[in-house]
């Protein structure tokens, strides 16, 4: 079993100014340690404001941690180039409607990461896009559509396709299931699990639903006030 992600002593502080010259430090999450293995799933739980989102933003590369290091396959992430990092760790946002550019077709949205991060030829890019659409069970007719005419379930499929387009090794899912009703939620869960089986990727889930987290994940981490208070295998 290969360790994909090893997080050691990761911290994030925000500095909030309280006056002209004074500022106060707010700790988003304290020193955090955990590991993630290939093909496994990790569930992050905790009440709102416990630092879950800040933690996954730091892992995904949206924000920089103040202290500590994330090791990806034994190498520190800060030594990796931006492209390599974004290629191997992708993120699914919790709101597919607002995380898609409304002025771009689905095809353009899927093409962009390929153009920016890989040196593939146009034919290979097309093939990869069609492959990923097949993977998420979406007809490739949708590539020419704009996001506004797609249903919420289809938008979720597109969001997953967008995360999968670069063949990542880790996918971070930020409360993807929160906005869906129960039947669609199970469809998405099954889709994510089949993708995991086919491509052998690791997930980091954020969830508020403990039953769901137990079903999905191999390991549950509970955060409170930015610190891990529980790290249990299921």
């Amino acid at each position: 079993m290969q360790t994909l992600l090893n997080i050691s002593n990761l911290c994030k502080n925000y500095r909030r100014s309280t006056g002209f010259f004074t500022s106060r430090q707010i700790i988003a999450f304290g020193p955090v340690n955990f590991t993630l293995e290939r093909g496994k799933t990790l569930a992050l739980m905790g009440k709102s404001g416990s630092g879950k989102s800040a933690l996954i933003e730091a892992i995904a590369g949206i924000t920089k941690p103040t202290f500590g290091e994330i090791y990806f396959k034994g190498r520190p992430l800060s030594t990796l180039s931006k492209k390599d990092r974004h290629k191997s760790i992708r993120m699914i946002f919790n709101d597919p409607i607002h995380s898609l550019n409304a002025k771009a077709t689905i095809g353009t949205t899927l093409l962009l990461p390929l153009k920016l991060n890989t040196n593939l030829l146009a034919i290979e890019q097309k093939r990869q896009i069609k492959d990923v659409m097949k993977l998420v069970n979406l007809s490739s007719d949708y590539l020419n559509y704009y996001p506004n005419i797609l249903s919420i379930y289809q938008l979720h499929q597109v969001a997953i396709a967008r995360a999968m387009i670069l063949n990542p090794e880790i996918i971070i899912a930020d409360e993807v299931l929160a906005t869906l009703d129960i039947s669609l939620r199970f469809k998405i869960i099954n889709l994510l699990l089949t993708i995991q089986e086919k491509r052998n990727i690791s997930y980091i889930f954020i969830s508020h639903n403990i039953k769901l987290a137990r079903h999905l994940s191999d390991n549950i981490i509970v955060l409170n006030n930015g610190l891990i208070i529980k790290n249990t295998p299921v």
Partner: protein
Amino acid sequence: MSINDEFDKKQIRTPLHYIFQIFKKKVAAIIAVWIICTFLFIIIFADFIVSHSPSEQNMNALLLPPYWLKGGNTAYLLGTDELGRDNFSRLIMGIQRTLAGALIITAVVSFFGLILGALASSLKNFKASILHHLLDSLLTIPILLTALIFIVIFGSSFQNCLYAIAISLLPQFIRSIFLSIETEMAKPYIVALKIDSMSDLQLVKNVIYPNILEPLVTIINRVFTMAIIEITTLGFLGFGVQTKGTELGAIIANNFEFMYLSPILVLAPGITLFIIIFSFNVVAEGIRHAIIEAEQ
């Protein structure tokens, strides 16, 4: 670009196409578009439209009324001024100068403003706050004052007048663009695109500008309106075009004292100005509403 070649692309409407279709149904905006087209036609073919040279004087026909009134002459459609110059020709040349000047200013300010706004938006923390305060302090100086200072330093001519107005309008434009970009930057889809390793400048150019069309239309329309008002104001005050020159504000100033003898001398350029500004605003409002409706 098409990724799926087998699919019939005609069925899909691009957002711009959609906006245009909604815009086409707005009667007032379409009428205003035709009025603007007429003015553009006048700008391009002004030299062929005028029947007399705008500075040609006829001592036998001083202060003639327009042709439909008693004593009018069809050779002078809108009558003549106190030196016997054809009012209609002067009006046409005035429209050409004022409107073309305003359009040039709008184009130049928009071009540089969009570039500088994009560059400004990529600044972070301390530099961004310095820029904010700098632009804020520039905004405290009235536009007309900035323009007047510039003209006093570099001398009064129509060209300097255009430079002065463009320079005085630029900070306001950059500030507005900067704010629109900043609010758009915080949206989740931008964060998602950043994870696709898109750089800030690429984001602003390819993603944010198409997404902030609605504020952009408002800002550009405001620049145009301000430009036309400033040009005519400077003309009226005699700083831009000299009073003997043809420019709508200068024509009004020149004819001001003869308003009681021949009201058409002041009414014609005044009403023309009103129509120009009004029609541009109607069109901008139409586009804005079309964009809002298309987004819903």
